[in-house]
């Protein structure tokens, strides 16, 4: 069973793709979606997909940039780029940076499934990666002190929109999944929740200063205000505007 993630700024496109893919026949599983590149960066470590659909034309960070980053952090990820006909040049560039395939919009059901079929075959043929041995990693020692160091690092660098689990793991030379587990063990929170918490605390501060949402979003490292607003609502239970008004009053 391979996991599939869809990144597209248009809800209807994501829905259509979900409806088009023959999940069961291909042995695929939908693991999650993102409304934009920023959300994808923040959630990719949570969803851990094998296959990712990426729309080229997205605000804040386009599909090419996202693909580059993802491939750098997850070299085995199969990325399928979605593009309109006249963005063909973009698509060609994507193939150059290691994207598996591209599909032109409007999406044709047959093409989508054929492409996925081929990619599933490729994934099947690949030597299964040996799961990192936890014991050996234990010996490598990820002490609580190093976890503290990571926490400090997050508190300092939360405004970096590219920061996520893999990014941090690479920075501190950890295996991402090991870091994920150890982090939760040490702090009682997942990496992404800790990061979001840091960001939201700062956002609340800014809301108190009546800073407009889109500026706050940029300031805390979530330059996509839609995703920011989603995160904010999830964290505080209220919308940013409501909080601003409350704090102002």
């Amino acid at each position, binding site marked *: 069973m391979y996991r599939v993630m869809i990144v597209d700024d*248009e*809800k*209807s*496109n994501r*829905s*259509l793709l979900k*409806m088009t893919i023959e999940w069961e026949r291909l042995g695929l599983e939908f693991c999650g979606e993102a*409304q934009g590149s920023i959300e994808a960066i923040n959630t990719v470590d949570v969803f851990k997909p094998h296959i990712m659909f990426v729309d080229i*034309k997205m*605000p*804040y960070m386009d599909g090419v940039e996202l693909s580059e980053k993802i491939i750098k952090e997850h070299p085995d990820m199969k990325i399928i780029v979605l593009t*309109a*006909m*006249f963005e063909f040049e973009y698509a060609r560039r994507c193939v150059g940076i290691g994207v598996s395939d591209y599909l032109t*919009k*409007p*999406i044709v059901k047959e093409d989508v499934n054929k492409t996925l079929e081929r990619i599933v075959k490729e994934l099947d043929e690949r030597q299964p990666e040996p799961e990192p041995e936890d014991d050996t990693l234990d010996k490598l020692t990820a002490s609580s002190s190093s976890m503290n160091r990571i926490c400090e690092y997050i508190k300092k660098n939360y405004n970096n929109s590219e920061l996520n689990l893999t990014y941090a793991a690479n920075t501190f030379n950890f295996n991402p999944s090991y870091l994920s587990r150890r982090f939760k063990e040490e702090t009682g929170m997942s990496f992404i929740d800790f990061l979001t918490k840091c960001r939201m605390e700062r956002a609340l501060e800014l809301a108190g200063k009546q800073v*407009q*949402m*889109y*500026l706050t*979003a940029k300031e805390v490292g979530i330059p*996509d*205000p*839609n995703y*920011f*607003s989603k995160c904010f609502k999830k964290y505080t239970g209220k919308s*940013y*505007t409501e909080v601003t008004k409350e704090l102002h009053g």
Partner: protein
Amino acid sequence: MKNKARWFNNLSIKNKVQRIFAVSMIVMILLCTLFFVSITRIKLARTFADRNADKVNAVQKSYSAVISNVNNISRLIMVNDSVLTYLRDDKQKAVVKKVSDDAVRAELHRILNSFSGRYTVFILKQCEVPENNPIRTDSEPEAPTKYETRTYYVNTAIGIMKPLPDEIFSQRWYGRAEIKNGGAIVIPDNRNAFDNNTDISTISFTRVINDIDTQKPLGLLVINIPISELAETYENFASDDCFLAYCDSEGTVISSNADNSVIEQLLDQYRSITDRDSFHTIKGDRAIDGKRLTDTGFYIVCSSKISFFDDISRELIVEIIGMLLLIVIMLSFISKFINKYITSPVTKLSETMLLAEENGSPVPFQDHSERNDEIGTLQQCYNDMASRIDTLLEEIKIEEEQRRHAERVAVQEQMKPHFLYNTLDTIGCMALQNTREEVYDAVEALGVFYRKFLSKGSEAIPIKDEITIIQKYIKLLKLRNDTEFDDEYDIEEGLENMMIAKLILQPFVENSIQHGIIPKGEPGIIRISIYSENNRMHIKVYDSGIGMEQEQIDALLNGNDEKSFGFKSTVNRIKSFYKGNAFVTINSNVGEFCEIDINIPYHR
């Protein structure tokens, strides 16, 4: 003639020049030759005339020398005692003979010997002698009884020549000499006066011998000058081509170096020679001169042939040929020069220009010689022009390319394929989700949008239709986007049917949503307001998005990048539709709003 002119015009410049040079060369040579010949002819004629006159004068001089020689002889004879005695003897009736004939002859020989020339001298006297008593010249005379006139003479003869007294003492001869009163006359024709047994013809110099004391005539002196003496006077001047002759006033030739008949024919032809003291004419190739000898009435006639080529010196001919050669060489040199410096470059230039037709673009002229003259300027100009044309062609190509690109982008802009595909995907998605009403609404909105959007290709559209397009566009957009926003319309009453440029609102609305409202992430407002003011119409697109900095506004209005392309092309479309009488301004507060104001002329 016209054909000739056309033929000449059709020739290449090179051929023209060559032909002109050939013709002028021939004409020049002919003219030179003609000029030279006529000049030489005139000059030659003059030379010949002068030469003739010189000859005649020289002959006259020689003749005078001969005559004066003879004259001197005659004078010596006249004063010679023996001669006088001899003549006086007879006056005394020849009774006493004091001097013998031989003595006189000896005296004469003595005198003649001191002169050159083969003259025959006769001393004649007439005496009264008794009849029937013939007296021989060398015998003692007897006492006369009856007198008769007898002629006695002594002579120094060459050959046998016997004077005939009747003729000599006739009026024609003696009479003429007597009138001269001791002076000399020359008588050319003495055939009647002498019984000549020799073939030596002579002319006679004669004078009356007077007594020194009494001045009475004593006798007659005749000196016969052989014609050969006369011939000697002109011999040196005569030649085959130059006839010299003595003739008398009757036109009878006395002596000449040619056949007498030829000279006589000539004299016949020119009768006036013997009518005048001097005569000169040039007739055909002969120069004829005549001169009267005043003391005798002789004429010297000179007729020389003007031989053209014989008389032109070889050097002159060489010079002429040299000059002609020089002309030919110079003309060919000039022709070469013109060919090298004018016609060839012009030909090359025109050939290069013709190449442009084959090539489709001008070919630069390759010339290795640096020239600063007019031809050089021409070549330079042509090259400059060629490169300029090349540049222009290149520019046109680029412009064409850009225009095509712009058109392509414009068509895409119009068709909005991105929008269409995304909307179709959305509708497809809705259909799969089984929301039939919504699907119907969406399809209807899409249909209306594209029907109005394309609006039969016309350029202008009523405001209400433009608003409908925006409404449907926003409706379709809302189906797709998570961001919430409201759209409001504030149209001044009575303006709904006003015609405006088509599709000027949609790009601005799209811009406001994409770059204004969505990035803000909060529910926003899009407001379209249309109103008239001071004879202008304002169409405003307001959005409550993130707004723009002044630099961003400037970049959008004046920038050249892809991002502002759609915006700018719409502004240009508006300006071109209203022929420049339209303005688009942007008013914005960062983080609060952005308002685009389209200011166009208002005509009710």
